């Protein structure tokens, strides 16, 4: 058993086998899709009107939803992991609620909460004239609602695994909690935040049920690719698959590009 390079590709069989099975499990269905795709019809499908705008809307709204989730979710994760507010484990479980809620019910909940007649939404409407549903903002909110918990839970896990003594060292250097958070905690758990953001973005990109319920399905305004896929499934399942693959390729490209840059920054 000799090889060059320590820590190199020598992966123990007992890990390699399940890893390969896992990979196959995730990839074989994708292969199924690829094999059955009517490649000849692809150019026509992609050129169809609305595809570009749906793709653009999907990418923009998923990215915005991720931004919202980062801004709100990372602090939330920090509070859950670091502070000693009472009832923390209850709060933590509540955060996972949107994960468990069937997305359509999530959309209904959003309507009931933020809709024009919702618990909070009625005031938004009567006081400020803001009506969220059926707008692009609603798409972002629906996606954030469904995807943010992934970020929060992932980042909280990373925070728990991090060595808190570095934060203590920062405190002795006069850094208040915010400075410590910004300059020590966040950089040290950066890989966890990146993972969380990737999960969040991917989930937002694929979001369907809550979006169609809360934001409706208007081409150019709220029709993201998954909604377009849903409609295509009604009329032309092949087109639906082509559309899904298109979104997949874009997301894989984005993630490969992103990871390359991030990994460089971190390693």
């Amino acid at each position, binding site marked *: 058993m000799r090889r060059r390079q320590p820590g190199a590709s020598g992966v123990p069989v007992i890990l390699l086998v399940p890893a390969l099975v896992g990979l196959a499990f995730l990839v074989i269905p994708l292969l199924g899709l690829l094999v059955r795709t009517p490649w000849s019809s692809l150019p026509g499908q992609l050129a169809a009107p609305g595809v570009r705008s749906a793709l653009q809307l999907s990418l923009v709204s998923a990215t915005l939803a991720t931004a919202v989730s980062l801004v709100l979710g990372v602090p939330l994760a920090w509070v859950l992991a670091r502070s000693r507010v009472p009832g923390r484990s209850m709060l933590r479980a509540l955060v996972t609620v949107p994960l468990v809620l069937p997305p359509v019910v999530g959309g209904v909940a959003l309507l009931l909460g933020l809709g024009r007649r919702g618990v909070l939404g009625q005031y938004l409407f009567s006081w400020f004239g803001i009506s969220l549903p059926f707008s692009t903002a609603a798409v972002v909110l629906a996606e954030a609602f469904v995807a943010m918990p992934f970020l929060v839970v992932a980042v909280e896990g990373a925070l728990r695994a991090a060595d808190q*003594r570095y934060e*203590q060292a920062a405190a*002795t*250097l006069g*850094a*208040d909690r915010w*400075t410590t958070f910004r300059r020590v905690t966040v950089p*040290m758990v*950066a890989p966890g935040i990146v993972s969380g953001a990737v999960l969040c973005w991917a989930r937002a990109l694929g979001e369907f049920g809550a979006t169609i319920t809360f934001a409706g399905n208007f081409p150019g305004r709220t029709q993201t690719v998954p909604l377009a896929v849903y409609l295509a499934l009604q009329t032309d399942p092949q087109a639906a698959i082509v559309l899904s693959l298109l979104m997949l390729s874009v997301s894989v490209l984005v993630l490969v590009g992103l990871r390359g840059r991030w990994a460089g920054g971190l390693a």
Partner: protein
Amino acid sequence: MSSTSGLQGQLRVRRAEFTLDLVLAVPAGSVTALLGPNGAGKTTSLSLLAGLLPLDTGRVSLDDTVLDDPGAGVFLAPERRPVGVVFQDYLLFPHLSVLDNVAFGPRSRGAGRRAARVIAQRWLERLGLGEHASARPRRLSGGQAQRVAIARALATDPRLLLLDEPLAALDASTRVEVRSELRRHLRDYPGATVLVTHDPLDAMVLADQIVVIEGGRAVQQGSPAEVARHPRTAYVARLVGLNLYRGRASGTTVELDEGARLAVGPAHSGPVFLAFPPSAVALHRARPDGSPRNCWPVTVAGLEQQGNLVRLALAGHPAVLADVTAAAVAALDLVPGAKVWAAVKATEIEVYPG
């Protein structure tokens, strides 16, 4: 300075099976060394002072500010304490460059980015690390990392400085330099310093007061000279056994501040410290001829038996401590008032720039 100036601490805390119970008073501008065996509670004491661990009972105040007083429900968070800490395991931020590690404190305490970097660069250069400024801590050797940790703590100009074995990972030559730098800094430093060390020389050179703790309690306390002269246990005797003088060198001769003159090995110039262990002092009935460059008449002022050793306090110019065996005491008839010659070899004397 008011009467409350400096650090006043009454530290009591339980950690699992370990209990710490210690009273500390460190006047502003002075240095207290904590000595003691592994697990005695030295690091725990520093954590209490830094606010990383709250007191169970007791009280800590610095100058006129109460830092921790569980009885009164007062606790000042670490970041609000004007404290600098060198941790035993450094805790350098792995994601920041060496320069930014050192600049972290000044920036957190309000300096601009550029100003903080200037301060940091100056400190790095003083500690001989200027060329590593842009490196990541992971790329440093153990000793380099420790020096960065020292620079980081000093760069914030704290009113209370806590140093946990700040020189342990340094090699012999670096240690001399860093110790001098630290001493230079502490001399001009208006705040209180608590220093944990295992090295008696560090304690003697740097500290105004020594507190020896064992099992969480102070077993002896006083100025280095007092503790050295009257060690309560053999452990303490061994730990703090050093003759220490301050003087002014020109070449291999040093004029002591207290008036006498000693020959030393390496040539120096300017203010210096001289240190040699009591065991290095040979006593003779008559003035000996031979290699020892330093010979002067002394009178036995006191004896303290530590196991098989006897520590003698000798009056003279300069006054000096000597460790001799019980056999030598008998042979030379060293009773109080006895007059003998003390001899110290020049090569036995350690010289440090003061």
